């Protein structure tokens, strides 16, 4: 089965800096990964996803990198803003199975 974990439970950055949130997974058969953002008191919201046939995918101010060799993915947030403060979850899945979520990293942005 899959297990997904984050390297750091908390990350503090200054406004305007770039943020990097890391995640490791265990199942080499996982073929799909996704990042969610959860603000206090709300449900998680989709940020960006990536399939295992890709190494990199970019969205608006966010980039996800996937390194299948070491089973690692990261979320990069450019020019971090106070509104980016939240808990970030990575999740992965093997085809035909349900998403397995990591425990979350709390990003704190100070201005």
């Amino acid at each position, binding site marked *: 089965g899959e297990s997904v974990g984050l390297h750091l439970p908390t990350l503090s950055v200054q406004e305007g800096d770039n943020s990097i949130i890391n995640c490791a997974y265990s199942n080499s058969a996982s073929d*799909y*990964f*996704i990042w969610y953002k959860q603000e206090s*008191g*709300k*449900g*998680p*919201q*989709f940020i960006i*996803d990536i399939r295992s046939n890709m190494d990199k995918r970019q969205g608006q101010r966010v980039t996800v990198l996937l390194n299948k060799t070491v089973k690692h993915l990261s979320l990069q947030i450019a020019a971090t803003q106070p509104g980016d403060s939240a808990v970030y*979850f990575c*999740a992965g*899945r093997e085809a*035909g199975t*349900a*998403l*397995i*979520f*990591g*425990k*979350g990293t709390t990003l704190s942005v100070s201005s």
Partner: protein
Amino acid sequence: DAGITQSPRHKVTETGTPVTLRCHQTENHRYMYWYRQDPGHGLRLIHYSYGVKDTDKGEVSDGYSVSRSKTEDFLLTLESATSSQTSVYFCAISDRDSTGELFFGEGSRLTVL
């Protein structure tokens, strides 16, 4: 925002009582999920549904049952609540199984005394 409504949003109950949480969607999505969220554990899948009357267990299904008699409603029942089931419960929906883009509700906070 996806049309997902969870009820109740907050509930306090006593050990041994039955509890039902409701998830209602207006998106006509096929897939519906119940997760629980606890400090240090992230989100864990309890049960999910891939159609009316079609449900399956997730990783933490013990002590929970679900029912889906209509596309729009997915009920989570705790037959006899225990303190270990104190948690925040999230419903999620998806219109396809090939991706993981789930749309989550706002959560239901359950406290079992």
